């Protein structure tokens, strides 16, 4: 039933979102790599005043095995206030949770019991295949027209093309394929938009066979993974332009457009350059009538004793940073960059997006470093900062350590473990919160992946008003 007043977690502008109340719960997708137990949504207490702060206080197990939960999102968010299709009285209450390996999509209701959300609908792989022609659903975004769900693979075992499925945001049925004209786009990964400019941006990873059994060395060195950005007309659903970052820049993943709806730029992370194993962050922007992209951050590989490296990178004698996620604070000032290989989380001041200034760095985990969390200095950690989520007010930053099952195993063959950490971020400092370190058994044998914050976070909402 629709609300009488707008959902209080919808904000007209980024400024209002920043001023909103802090989150009290965090939802984390956690999966069992062995597929022996079901994947689950773990609910974490993130209220510093609570007695169970930093603990997993709720747990919703899924009814199937081997879904491999990855990225998920809210059914509705601030874009519901957009003036051309306003429906402010829908509620942000359902998590749309895709299984990247199973192609199943769960709809989970968080309203009645926020700490034990309830599954209310399951879309089977056939629904996505038949109605949209896709599989391997990856990223969810709430838009004024419905839910946008990117998918890496084609239907019925086809490798591709991947693309975007559109879902109704009240019935959660698959409405169909979003693209009217996909142009040359074949690989898919993330998609987000400049909503006030009717522009959609999408990025590229690889097809299912290129990722599901781990990174394929020959394909990587052969520069076969995705290396382009795509720009689309969000209204007409047409491909407008491809911006190729150069085939040495393999895997163009997370897209973080500026939240300020008057601006048309954004950041995208590149996992690895095959020339020197560096990772990079690029800014895309309007250049006259065209789109352009420029590398603004380069993070070099760190030389290492080959004996300490997993087979996949041993020949190189260096640890690649592997930038697998980035996140931009809602005020567009801070960019967080996860270096999953070296175990570093960097913070940049991107007030001037073309000239990021490094403004903090912490170490945790890492292929060689195995840096412990300050709360347990004696415990070496595997994995590295991976999915990073920033609170709406920008003061709290949450990271989890697992990337993707098969890739975890390749880069951390002795086990990736399971941990989550929180950082406090102010203009003056960027430090671990020593009270917040759920790890190991807290996740019941599962690997934590993406975090969503109650009431929204820096990577879920988009705004139509400045």
């Amino acid at each position, binding site marked *: 039933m629709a609300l009488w007043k707008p959902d209080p977690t919808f904000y*007209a502008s980024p400024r209002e979102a920043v001023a909103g109340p802090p989150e009290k719960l965090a939802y984390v997708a956690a999966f069992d790599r062995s597929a022996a137990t079901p994947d689950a949504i773990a609910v974490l207490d993130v209220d510093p005043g609570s007695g169970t702060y930093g603990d997993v206080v709720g747990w919703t197990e899924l009814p199937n095995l081997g879904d491999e939960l990855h990225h998920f999102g809210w059914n509705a968010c601030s874009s519901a206030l*957009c*003036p*051309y299709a306003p429906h402010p009285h829908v509620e942000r209450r359902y998590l749309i949770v895709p299984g990247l390996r199973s192609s199943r999509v769960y709809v989970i209701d968080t309203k009645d019991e926020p700490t034990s959300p309830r599954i209310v609908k399951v879309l089977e792989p056939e629904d996505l295949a038949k109605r949209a022609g896709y599989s391997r659903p990856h990223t969810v975004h709430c838009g004024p027209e419905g839910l946008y769900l990117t998918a890496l693979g084609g239907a019925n075992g086809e490798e591709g093309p991947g693309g975007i499925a559109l879902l109704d945001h009240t019935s959660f049925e698959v409405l169909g394929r979003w693209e009217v004209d996909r142009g040359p786009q074949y690989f898919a990964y993330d998609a987000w938009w400049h909503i006030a400019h009717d522009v959609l941006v999408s990025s590229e990873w690889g097809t299912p066979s290129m990722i599901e059994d781990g990174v394929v060395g020959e394909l990587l060195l052969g520069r076969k993974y995705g290396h382009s950005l795509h720009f689309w007309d*969000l209204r007409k659903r047409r491909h407008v332009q491809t911006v190729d970052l150069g085939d040495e820049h393999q895997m163009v993943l997370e897209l973080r457009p500026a939240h300020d709806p008057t601006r048309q730029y954004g950041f995208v992370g590149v996992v690895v350059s095959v020339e020197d194993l560096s990772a990079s962050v690029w800014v895309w922007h309007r250049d006259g009538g065209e789109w352009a992209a420029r590398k603004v951050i380069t993070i070099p590989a760190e030389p290492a004793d080959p004996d300490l490296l997993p087979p996949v990178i041993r020949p190189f004698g260096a640890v690649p940073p592997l930038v697998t996620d980035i996140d931009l604070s809602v005020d567009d000032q801070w960019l967080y960059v996860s270096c999953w290989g070296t175990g570093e989380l960097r913070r940049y001041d991107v007030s001037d997006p073309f000239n990021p200034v490094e403004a903090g760095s912490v170490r945790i985990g890492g292929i060689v470093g195995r840096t412990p969390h300050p709360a347990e200095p004696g415990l070496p950690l595997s994995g590295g900062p991976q999915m990073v989520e920033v609170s709406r007010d920008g003061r709290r930053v949450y990271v989890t350590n697992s990337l993707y099952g098969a890739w975890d195993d390749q880069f951390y063959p002795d086990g990736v473990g399971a941990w989550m950490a929180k950082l406090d971020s102010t203009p003056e400092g960027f430090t671990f919160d020593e009270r917040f370190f759920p790890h190991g058994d807290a996740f019941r044998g599962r690997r934590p992946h993406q975090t969503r914050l109650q009431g929204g976070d820096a990577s879920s909402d988009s705004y139509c008003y400045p």
Partner: protein
Amino acid sequence: MMNGSLAALIALGAFHGLNPGMGWLFAVARGLQERSRARVLQSLPAIAAGHAASVGVVVALVVLTRSVLATRIVAIGGGLLLVAFGLYRLLSQRHFRWVGMRISLWQLAGWSFLMSSVHGAGLMLLPILTTAPAAGGAHHHGMSAGGGLSTGVFVTGVHTLAMFVVAGVIAVLVYEIVGLAVLRRAWFNLDRLWAVALVTAGAVTLVTAA
């Protein structure tokens, strides 16, 4: 036109103008995007024009067919339609969607036309149209087509003017002073109220016709 009907016409216009979904919010969004009050003001006539066209179609149909068709048929048929449409709006989860954010004034007028039409803005005037004398109150021409036409123009004009004034005042107030935070406190679910208004208008039409 009787004073009561005139007041109802103006009140309905004000009600339509009040609804953020009928267009003033779009005017504010366009203004904010370029930090330009002129853009807010420029959007309003387009929105009003679209609304007028949508209402005008219904008004013209009713007024012009009255000389041919029995008033009661229009009233009863219209009343039933209204109740049904109102219930549909009340129960339906569907939301109208067509354009994006970057549109021309022509497209804005078109959007406003469609938005008003799918919300039954013109239908809501049926009780007034079917009970009011055929011609405008100022001149008593009887049932001539010219009289019907001027009544139609008069009704559409008064309604739209009320809508335009209310929408304009709110848009400028929100843009200049109040700010968009007001949406979170004051944006009541007018869709439901709107649906109830449609059902009520239908019932009134039916009762009056019986």
